[in-house]
């Protein structure tokens, strides 16, 4: 059972503010989903490597040569709030 205390912890890790109603809904829905996920645990996976990329892809390396695809101004222009060429954020220290 994913209780409300756990839901609040997970919400904080997820950085999502939630209403009490949402917390209660998620508590019952996540409990059901986790129980459902337990079906996966029943499979014997001794000595099996986890698969994270499903096709054999040869890693590709390129020279570390600087290139400009998009200008800094284009990137800054879509910021919700900026001060000159800096992003405006709450105090971080």
């Amino acid at each position: 059972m994913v209780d409300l205390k756990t839901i609040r912890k997970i919400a904080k890790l997820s950085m999502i503010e939630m209403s009490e109603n949402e917390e209660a809904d998620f508590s019952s829905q996540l409990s059901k989903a986790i129980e459902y996920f337990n079906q996966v645990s029943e499979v014997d996976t001794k000595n099996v490597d986890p698969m994270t990329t499903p096709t054999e892809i040869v890693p590709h390396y390129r020279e570390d040569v600087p290139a400009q695809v998009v200008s800094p101004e284009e990137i800054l222009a879509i910021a919700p709030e900026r001060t000159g060429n800096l992003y405006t954020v709450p105090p971080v220290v």
Partner: protein
Amino acid sequence: MDLLRASIADIGQQLRKKQISSLEITQYFLQRIAAHNSKINAFVTSNDNAEREASDVDQKLARGELLGPLSGIPVGIKDMLCTKGIRTTAASHILKNFVPPYDATVVSRLKRSGAVILGKLNQDEFAMGSSNENSIFGATKNPWNLDFVPGGSSGGSAAAQASRLCAATIGTDTGGSIRQPASFCNVVGVKPTYGRVSRFGVIAYASSLDQAGPIASCVEDAALILEVISGFDQFDSTTSNQKVPEFSKNLNKNIKGLRIGLMKEYMMGGLHPDVEKTIALAVEDLKRMGCEIVEVSVPLTAQAVPMYYLIAASEASSNLSRYDGVKYGHRASFENLSKTSLEEFYMRTRGQGFGVEVKRRIMLGTYCLSSGYYDAYYKKACQVRRLMAEQFQNCFNSCDLILGPVSTAPAFRIGEKLSDPLSMYLNDVFTVSANLAGVPGLSIPYGISIDNLPIGIQLMANHFDEQKMLNVGYALQETSPMTWRIPNV
């Protein structure tokens, strides 16, 4: 010419013969959008420059410049792919006003081959859904019956294509999001092999599962678009450098001698009777064309849906951590930013920005990746995933392609499954496996239900064997009773 029933190659031929101009083609589809989109709600943003871009193609044509294979072809793009200068939202409040400063590789390749982008198509928020009901723009309607869902998450792409609001569309498929809506709307959808198509500029949902692909009117069009968008991309290290075949030129209806696998686990009951009939019809037609039908088995199909949701939610929770209200997208407003804590800033921004299904999956994924649970959930699912991929490889040792349903039943009513997320997830049982195993899948129209709703069938091939899958689709297109059938919108 009848643009409603013309393939891309047909349109291209007329264009080159100067029997129709690129501008006329674009205007034809823009008029269809103006006439029908309000009922279907497929297009959510239009490209204001579409007519000018179409005229540019005409000018190039007049100057005798070499034209790409999609010259003058009007296409619609799922709102999951970045389009330079055209708002891209993933149907989420958190990206409501996001205008990307660059194109996804898929989009730049379409443009390079001459395609005209008409606009952006509705979807489930961040591609999380199978019904296109989770969108800030409201639900997309199925053009065959407006009370029904078009499927999802590429519901806007499938509905737009079915009602011919454009000549072709692009969707994305993480667990069936191209194939299932294609099936519900009577159009052709291809999920390519993982690594075939670049994910650069495709808004990330679950990075080890996501692929973009075409949703088109016919197999020839899907093949042509696939060859344009495929291939190695320096901006996506998971793209394969395998040579891209000329899928459309290589199409071959002679499929005699191919072995088609029917997967035991897919035919074990629980299918809607009309879906069952549709599969049986395709099997008979394939036998008549000289194919051998063999039984294959992927026993881990029973665990596919929980495995898929566990992996997808985990990867989503990580991918969506980038939406922080700092560099782009929605930011909650605060009276005094300098007196706001960083945590409060992030939490409120994200709490306001994400819809309920997205929050649900982020929460689930965060739980599965959190300290003490990672090994038991995410790592475990990735181990089972390898076993399942091996079972698929075993199947392809004894057959060329796997045939099966796309969905357990035809489209359902809008609202019918909204209150029960788990029952919505269970519908994806036939599509998620291809993403987990990384294999390509094709959905083509093959039947219609007693309620007049389309039913597609699915073909799956081994890694990078799209040509074989397209060839069989091409042959089946000849025998399908649903080929080129268009709903009355």
